[in-house]
C-alpha cells in the first residue's frame, strides 16, 4: 500500500480531489504548506511506529471483538460487586436514546441549534430535583468523586466569602476510599480532609469525635454518605447536620440515588449540599465508565455562586408558553478574583445526564419505589443466607443496609483473595476485597446485590462459600 491511500473516513483522500484543492491554493503538495510554518528540525521524519491498518470493517470487528472476547462479563458470571459502581436494570429506552446520532454526536451547540438537547438536560436536572427534593441541580460532571471534591471546595469558598475562612473538611472513616483519595489531592492546596472515627459496633459516625473536631472552629464542612460505602444506612443525618451548623460548618451528603424512591433525601435532613453519582440511573457499568456526578442545593445564591460547572437555566421567549435554555450565570465558572480561585472544568458527561433523564421518566415514582423495595429485600435475604454459613460474619455492622454489607472472613483462615479465586470457579464474582483499604477489618469483603439478583443466585453464593470455607 502506498503512503497515501483512499480511506472511507477521508473523502479528500481521493487523489483527483486533493489535486484540485492544491491547485486552488497554488501549491504542489500539502507538505509544502506545513513545511512553510514548522521548522525543519521539529518535523518528524520517520514513519510512526504503529501497526498496519485493518482496512475492512469486518476485519476490524473480528480484531477488536476478538480481544474483548477475552473478558468475562457480569452477564456470564454472577456478580456481587458494587463499591461505587452498580449493575442495575437498564431500560432499553436508555440505550436507544443515547445511541441517537443527534445526541451521541452533539456537543456544545447552544440555545438555538440544540434546543432539544438543552431541554433534555433541563428535564434531567428537573427530575433529579424531584428525586433529591432540591431546587438547584448542576450539569453532570466527571463522576461522583469529582462531585464530592467540588462540593468540599464549594464549602471552603463559602466560608471565605463569609469572611470566616476555614481549612478542615470532615469525612467519615468509612468513606469510599477511591473518592477519599481523589478528594484529598483535589483539596490539598486549599484545605485538609480529616476522617471522623466511627463506632465499631454500628459503623455510624462517632458523634462525640465529630463534635470534638468541630470545636476547633476551623471546620468548613462535614460530609457523610447515605448509605455508607460499607452498606449501612447513616441514621443520624439530621444530627450530623445539626452539629455541623452549630459550629458554623456546612453539611454535605452523598445519597445513593437508587435508594431515593424509598429513602428520605438528605436535603430534608438538614444537608446544605447534596452530591453523588448518577451511574445507577440507566448507565451500564462499563468497566467503570458510566459514572457521572451531580451537585444540588436549594435556591441559595451563596452556594450556587460557587458551583464550578455549567448550569442550564430556563428562559422565557417572545412567545407565550415557549421556553428556551442557556448557560446561566456563566461568570461563576471562571471567577477570577483571588478569594474565589477557580476550579477547572471541561467536557464532562452530558450524555449520561440525558440518559438518566430517560431512566427517571421511565421509572416514575412507582418504579423508583419498587427498585428500593426489591433491593432492600434482596440485601436482607443475602445477609440472612450468608449468616447461615459457619465461619463467616455476614453483616459486620449490626445495622440496616441498602444494597451492600461487609462479610468478615477472618475466622476462616482464608484471605478474601483466595475465596474470590475459588468463587470464580463457581462463576461468581465475590465481593470487593476490603483488606487493603480497611485494615482494621482484616479479611473482609463488601458484597453487593441489586434488583437483578435472584434468590437462586444468593443461595448459590451461600452454598459456594460454605464449601470453600469447609475446604471442599
Amino acid at each position, binding site marked *: 500500500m502506498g503512503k497515501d491511500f483512499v480511506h472511507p473516513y477521508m473523502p479528500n483522500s481521493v487523489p483527483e480531489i486533493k489535486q484540485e484543492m492544491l491547485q486552488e491554493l497554488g501549491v504542489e503538495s500539502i507538505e509544502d504548506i506545513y513545511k512553510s510554518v514548522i521548522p525543519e528540525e521539529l518535523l518528524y521524519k520517520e514513519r510512526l511506529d504503529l501497526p498496519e491498518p485493518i482496512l475492512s470493517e469486518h476485519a476490524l470487528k473480528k480484531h477488536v471483538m476478538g480481544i474483548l472476547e477475552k473478558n468475562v462479563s457480569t452477564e456470564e458470571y454472577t456478580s456481587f460487586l458494587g463499591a461505587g459502581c452498580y449493575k442495575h436494570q437498564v431500560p432499553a429506552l436508555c440505550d436507544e436514546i443515547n445511541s441517537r446520532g443527534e445526541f451521541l454526536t452533539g456537543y456544545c451547540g447552544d440555545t438555538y441549534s440544540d434546543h432539544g438537547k438543552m431541554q433534555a438536560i433541563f428535564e434531567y436536572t428537573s427530575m433529579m430535583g424531584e428525586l433529591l427534593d432540591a431546587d438547584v441541580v448542576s450539569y453532570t460532571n466527571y463522576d461522583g468523586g469529582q462531585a464530592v471534591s467540588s462540593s468540599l471546595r464549594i464549602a471552603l469558598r463559602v466560608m471565605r466569602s463569609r469572611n470566616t475562612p476555614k481549612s478542615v473538611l470532615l469525612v467519615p472513616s468509612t468513606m469510599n476510599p477511591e473518592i477519599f483519595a481523589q478528594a484529598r489531592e483535589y483539596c490539598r492546596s486549599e484545605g485538609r480532609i480529616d476522617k471522623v472515627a466511627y463506632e465499631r459496633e454500628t459503623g455510624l459516625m462517632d458523634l462525640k469525635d465529630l463534635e470534638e473536631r468541630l470545636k476547633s472552629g476551623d471546620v468548613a464542612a462535614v460530609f457523610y454518605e447515605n448509605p455508607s460505602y460499607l452498606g449501612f444506612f447513616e441514621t443520624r443525618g439530621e444530627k450530623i447536620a445539626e452539629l455541623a451548623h452549630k459550629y458554623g460548618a456546612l453539611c454535605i451528603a452523598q445519597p445513593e440515588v437508587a435508594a431515593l424512591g424509598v429513602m428520605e433525601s438528605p436535603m430534608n435532613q438538614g444537608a446544605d449540599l447534596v452530591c453523588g453519582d448518577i451511574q445507577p440511573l440507566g448507565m451500564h457499568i462499563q468497566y467503570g465508565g458510566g459514572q457521572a456526578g451531580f451537585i444540588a442545593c436549594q435556591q441559595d445564591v451563596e452556594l450556587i455562586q460557587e458551583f464550578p460547572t455549567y448550569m442550564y437555566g430556563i428562559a422565557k421567549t417572545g412567545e407565550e408558553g415557549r421556553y428556551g435554555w442557556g448557560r446561566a450565570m456563566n461568570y461563576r*465558572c471562571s471567577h*477570577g478574583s*483571588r478569594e474565589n480561585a477557580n476550579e477547572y472544568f471541561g467536557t464532562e458527561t452530558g450524555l449520561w445526564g440525558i440518559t438518566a433523564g430517560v431512566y427517571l421518566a421511565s421509572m416514575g415514582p412507582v418504579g423508583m419505589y419498587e427498585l428500593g423495595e426489591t433491593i432492600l429485600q434482596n440485601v436482607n435475604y443475602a445477609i440472612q443466607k450468608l449468616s447461615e454459613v459457619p465461619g463467616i460474619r455476614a453483616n459486620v455492622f449490626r445495622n440496616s443496609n441498602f444494597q451492600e454489607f461487609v462479610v468478615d472472613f477472618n475466622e476462616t483462615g482464608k484471605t478474601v483473595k483466595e475465596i474470590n479465586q475459588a468463587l470464580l470457579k463457581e462463576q461468581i464474582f465475590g465481593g470487593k476485597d476490603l483488606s487493603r483499604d480497611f485494615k482494621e477489618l482484616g479479611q473482609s469483603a463488601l458484597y453487593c446485590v441489586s434488583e437483578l439478583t435472584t434468590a437462586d443466585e444468593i443461595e448459590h453464593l451461600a452454598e459456594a462459600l460454605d464449601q470453600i470455607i469447609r475446604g471442599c
Partner: protein
Amino acid sequence: MKETDKKIGFLINPVAGLGGRAGMKGSDDAARCRKALLAGYEKSASCRAEECLKELKGLSMDGWRIYAPEGCMGADVLFKVGIPCEPLENSRIGSLDEETSREDTLYFARRLCGMGMDLILFCGGDGTARDICEAAGSNVPVLGVPAGVKMYSACFATTPCKAGEILKRFIQGKETSFSHREVMDLDENSLDELAVSPTLYGFLTVPDDKVRLQRAKEAGTSEEEEAEVLAAEIRAEMKEDTLYILGPGSTTYRVKQMLHGTGTVRGVDLAKNGRILRADADERTILSFLDREQKAEIIVTCIGGNGFLFGRGNQQISPLVLKKVGKSHIRLAVTREKLSGLGTRPMLVDTGDLETDRYLAGYYKIRLNAKEEIIYRVQAGADALLS
C-alpha cells in the same frame, strides 16, 4: 404624574453621522455639514435613535418622565415611536429643524442637568460625547446611542439596539450600577496624517452593561468585577511613605476612591500613606512633590482602544516626571478586558520625547490579582508606527 417620578433626558445631535456618508471624517465642521446637507446627504442620527427607542415597545413608563428638546433634537423621534415626552421649548434659537450646532447640544445638555435627570440618553458621535461631557461632567449618568462617524469613546453602547436594551433595563430597575467610561475624540481635520490618535477628553458615567452573554464555551468575569479586584490588589500593594502619582481613568479612579480624600477621574492625583494629598496636580506640582520625596511610584492605566499609556490625557506625567520616578516604579492598572480591546497591539507611549518613549518601552508585568499576572509589551508610539 407625580413629583417622585424619575426623569430621563433625551437628546439627539441631528447632524451626527452626516459627515460619514459625505466622505468627511466627522461632522464637527458646521460649514461642511451644511454643504453636505445641501448636497442631499441625509441625516441618519434620528433613524439610529428610532432603532434604539423601538426596544422600549410595550414597556410601562409608569413613574418615568422623559424630557427632550422639541423638534429634531429629540421630541420628534419620541413622538414618532409613540413615547410620551415633555418637550423643552426652544427659547434659544429660531428654528431648530434647520441647522443645529454644538452650542445647541451644550445648551440642552446643561438644561437637562439643571433639571436633575436620572439618566441622559444621547444620540451622536465622539463630538457629541465631548459636548455632553463638558456640560454634564462625569457625575450625571448618561448613555450613548452610537450614530456618529467617529466612535472612539467608550461611553456608547455597541449598537443602537443594545442601547435600547440597556435603557429598558434601566427603566425596569435592573441596571443599577455605573462605571466611568472614556470620552475620546480626534481632530478630524488632521486625520489624514497617520500619526494622529484620539485624545482623552474626559469621562462619563454610564450604566454597566452586565449582560455579557457569549456564545463562547467559557465566559469570564465582567469587566466591572475585574476592575474592582484589580483596584483592591493595587490598594493592597501600596506601601507606606511612598508618593503615588495616580493617573486619570476609571480604573485608577477606583483606587483613588479607596483612599482618604477626594480624587478626580480626569486628573492626576498625588497620594501618600492612604491619603490624597493633591487632586488634579499639574506637572510643576508633581515635580515639587517629587523633590521632597524619597520614594515615588506611578500608577497609570492605558486608554481603551488605542492603548496609549502616557501622552494622551495625562501629559502632566511628563518626561521629566517619568525619568525622576523611574521605569521600574510604574505600576500598570489595566484589566484583561481592556487588553483584549487592544487586539494584539502593544500599549503605546508618546510623551513628546522620543528618548523617554524608548526608555519606557519594554515588557511590563501587570498583576491582576494575587493569582494572575500578565506580561505585556509597551512600545514608543513613533516606533509602533514605523513597524
